[in-house]
């Protein structure tokens, strides 16, 4: 064990604490092993320094070792460490993404409490959209996609079902109208359902909806005709039923 003066001892203890903190939650390395290597490195580097070793000798060694926070790549750390780190010091889009996911989890936990679930889910959704907008500005998505996709998917599925099924009695005609709208203004739908529905996909969905609508209208006409023919053949009149 190297002989340090009081101040150098404190400095080394602080540094080792930073090493432990930096390596905590790191899956690919053994923190105890690294700490041992670091201690060994410091002792070797100070082998010729006068005893007791002071901060004047110790600081350059620690300086060359560098900040422990930079030793391990982010992807090697546990998810909870990355989440806390992202919230604490990450760029804006990372914070937004983590906040969005946090609110989403909270909304699920308060599922039965009205209107907490709805408010939290909407807030989570808007934060996810803000993350998308921010990432688009930056030209890259730094946040993990799974952090923002859950609230987006929940709200989009709800919106999609609402748009598709609200006018259920007029479904075939509505499908044709909606399909035409999707093909006519794909940009609008792409914006509302970003990032899952691009302009091209909106056009394709529109085409399918038109086809489904046309087939349903065709089936309704054929079905109606068959009912009329059968009732005429059997001598049944709708007015008499």
């Amino acid at each position, binding site marked *: 064990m190297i002989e340090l003066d009081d101040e150098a001892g404190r400095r080394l203890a602080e540094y080792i604490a930073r090493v432990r903190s930096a390596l905590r939650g790191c899956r*690919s390395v*053994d923190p105890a092993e690294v700490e041992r290597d670091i201690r060994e490195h410091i002792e070797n*580097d100070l082998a010729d320094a006068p005893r007791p070793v002071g901060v004047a000798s110790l600081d350059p060694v620690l300086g060359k070792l560098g900040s422990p926070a930079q030793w391990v790549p982010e992807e090697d750390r546990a998810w909870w460490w990355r989440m806390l780190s992202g919230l604490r010091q990450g760029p804006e889009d990372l914070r937004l993404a983590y906040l969005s996911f946090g609110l989403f989890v909270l909304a699920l936990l308060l599922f039965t409490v009205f209107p907490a679930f709805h408010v939290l889910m909407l807030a989570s959704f808007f934060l996810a959209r803000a993350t998308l907008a921010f990432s688009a500005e930056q030209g890259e998505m730094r946040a993990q996609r799974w952090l923002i996709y859950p609230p987006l998917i929940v709200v989009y599925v709800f919106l999609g079902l609402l748009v598709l099924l609200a006018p259920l009695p007029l479904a075939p005609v509505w499908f044709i109208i909606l399909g035409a709208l999707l093909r006519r203004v794909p940009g609008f739908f792409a914006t509302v359902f970003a990032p899952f529905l691009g302009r091209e996909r909106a056009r394709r969905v529109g085409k399918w909806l038109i086809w489904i609508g046309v087939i349903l209208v065709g089936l309704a006409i054929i079905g109606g005709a068959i009912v009329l023919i059968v009732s005429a053949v059997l001598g049944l009149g709708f007015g008499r039923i």
Partner: protein
Amino acid sequence: MAQTFLDNWVTQVRKGLLELSILNAIRPGRRYGYDIVKSLRAMEGLVISEGTIYPILSRFRREGLVEATIEPSPDGPARRYYALTPAGVGLLRRMNAYWEQVKRGLDSTVEKENMP
């Protein structure tokens, strides 16, 4: 913007090269951590913070590429020696071959670019 890009690029390149250099430093025979650091210090621009090397060694050991043994030293504290495992030797051979291939390709591209 260009500076940020360059910084990110240098970090990525350095990371891969540092791993390759550490394995190559151990290839001739077992070495202790501080000795590896000393040998890599000479490589300009490769080792910015020396502490980075130890987590890499620990990861190599966990992945079975190197093995570590602790032995007493006559000059000071007990030393932790690292040596390549057969898996490490095989991987290093392939990494070096790949690096040679990339280097040749890159050199020829750069030469073409510099032609008048």
